[in-house]
């Protein structure tokens, strides 16, 4: 059956018109943004600065995160209010690699220990820091750490049939507990400062335009690939089971499905996607600290998905972009109103646009088509 995977992926995408537009858009961004950044003069109106390019890349990592949340919330009905934790763990795994890359260029010049450890007077590298000098190992951890945490958490939660609001509260507690833990200096993750002052990745200077463009490209590709993967998953027969679980869990159980396995499996996949998004986020933003575990962050992700349109996948991407554009603009122009703006947006969407922005667009188009047909 393996040889069918490619055709299956293609078929899944072919059946998804809105998703195709999204992928075309991504492809256009992938080509045009680095081109404009590299080829046009800085004074040109068409020029996209390094700053804007990196900002767009940041939005794309958020979009990946939103996709991960939509997969479990929109399709399986698992409302995770702690997905920021998986994002942050992926980010920390990447951050540990970047810290090890600094080497003797740190303030204290220690060849092995990152600055904060020297500052804390530690003499040797903690065991869990070993191996992070290797990029493949770090990549493995980016996938494994969020994945294993999701596996353990999900196994316990789903086996005990914790669902609905109770599960949401537990995921909040999870990310909050991790935040408190990571704030502690003796955890060995840099305490409240986290990691920053990264120098290079695989030997490429992180400040260099070329590296930034390459990271931008990787992020766009990762977002596109995640989208296709999620679309594939929900279009398989397993995807129909997942939706069936969302709509009538006990019925699905009576039909003989091991609901726990399906939930666990999709939850782990979602956590891994979130981890990869975090790993792409950290080298571009240049910092990771325990604030990423903040419960508010995780709630914000859910708002992106709700605003974009839950249970559509492309809606999650659109929502992440819209809200974060608005956030960048409003926090710059009117710093004090941003939270009110976000809250207002959420209220408007839940009251008037229950299927989110993409749902509203779809409805508007179909009424227009009906009007034209008349």
């Amino acid at each position, binding site marked *: 059956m393996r040889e069918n995977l490619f055709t299956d992926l293609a078929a899944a995408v072919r059946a998804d018109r809105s998703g195709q537009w999204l992928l075309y858009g991504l492809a256009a961004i992938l080509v045009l943004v680095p081109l404009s950044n590299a080829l046009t003069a800085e004074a040109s109106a068409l020029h996209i600065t390094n700053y804007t390019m990196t900002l767009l890349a940041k939005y794309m990592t958020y979009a990946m995160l939103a996709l991960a949340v939509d997969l479990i919330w929109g399709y399986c009905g698992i409302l995770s209010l702690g997905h920021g934790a998986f994002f942050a763990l992926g980010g920390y795994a990447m951050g540990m690699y970047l810290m090890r890359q600094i080497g003797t260029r740190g303030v204290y010049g220690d060849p092995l220990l990152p600055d904060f450890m020297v500052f804390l007077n530690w003499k040797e590298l903690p065991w869990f820091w070993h191996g992070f000098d290797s990029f493949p190992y770090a990549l493995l951890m980016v996938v494994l750490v969020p994945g294993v945490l999701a596996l353990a958490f999900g196994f316990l939660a789903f086996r005990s049939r914790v669902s609905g609001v109770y599960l949401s509260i537990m995921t909040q507690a999870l990310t909050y507990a991790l935040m408190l833990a990571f704030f502690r200096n003796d955890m060995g993750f840099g305490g409240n400062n986290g990691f920053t002052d990264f120098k290079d990745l695989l030997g490429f200077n992180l400040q260099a335009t070329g590296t930034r463009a390459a990271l931008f490209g990787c992020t766009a590709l990762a977002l596109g690939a995640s989208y296709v993967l999620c679309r594939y998953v929900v279009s398989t*027969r*397993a995807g129909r089971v997942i*939706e069936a679980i969302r*709509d009538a869990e006990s019925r*699905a159980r*009576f*039909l*003989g499905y*091991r609901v726990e396995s399906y939930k666990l499996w999709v939850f782990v996949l979602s956590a891994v996607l979130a981890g990869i998004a975090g790993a792409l986020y950290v080298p571009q933003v240049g910092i990771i600290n325990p604030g990423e575990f903040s419960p508010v962050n995780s709630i914000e992700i859910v708002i992106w998905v709700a605003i974009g349109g839950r249970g559509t996948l492309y809606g999650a991407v659109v929502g992440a972009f819209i809200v974060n554009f608005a956030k960048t603009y409003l926090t710059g122009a009117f710093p004090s109103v941003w939270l009110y703006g976000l809250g207002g947006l959420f209220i408007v969407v839940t009251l008037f646009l229950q299927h989110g922005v993409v749902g509203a667009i779809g409805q508007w188009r179909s009424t227009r088509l009906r009007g034209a047909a008349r």
Partner: protein
Amino acid sequence: MAEHPIAGRCTVSDLLMYLEDISVSFDGFRALNALNLYIETGELRCIIGPNGAGKTTMMDVITGKTRPDRGSALFGRTIDLLQLSEPQIAQAGIGRKFQKPTVFENQTTLANLELAMSGAKTVWRWLNVRMTAQQRDRIEEVLQTIGLREQRLASAATLSHGQKQWLEIGMLLMQDPQLLLIDEPVAGMTPQEIERTAELLLSLAGKHTLIVVEHDMEFVRSIARKVTVLHEGSVLAEGDMDSIQADVRVKQVYLGE
């Protein structure tokens, strides 16, 4: 307790399921009280009884949703139902239709039947393996049986109440169950729908074994070969419809005489 009249009449090999001495209490309330029930292979059994007689609890025990305090429940002579989990019981060949139609509203008729198909249901298989021609044929066959061929691509939410009930029976059939438990199939149906449901259930008897719980006496009369009356958690009377309606104790229970 006296020897059960049915147990003596048929040989053991005819029995598909038997419940013996089943008791269930909820906070002191005895929902089932030393219930004995013997179901023969291929029969269509109707279960009636006033509210609170224990009909639903009995179904819950058979499907593993409720564990009895006491008693034994054997299926197909060798399978001890009390040792199995809900999904295991479903896999063993017992399908249940709930009172309220609970089809998957957001999916098509076809997808509903596909979801209900028997066979391995692990994540991995459902991610990779497509339907075989045989499975497609089976779905077509069931669509034909339940009379929903034209609605195959309609979303289940758009089906009428009666059609949803038939779809749900179709979903049970997809699991190739030996035993079908059907809870109030005709509640809320139009007379035409009731008639078609009776035809459907009669056509299934023989190939499958059916236990139907129903309040609608006229409907029970139209399909029943054997009727069991439950009262206060145990069997009050058993027999064909005429003898049941003539039974003095049944009259007392139903009419409070």
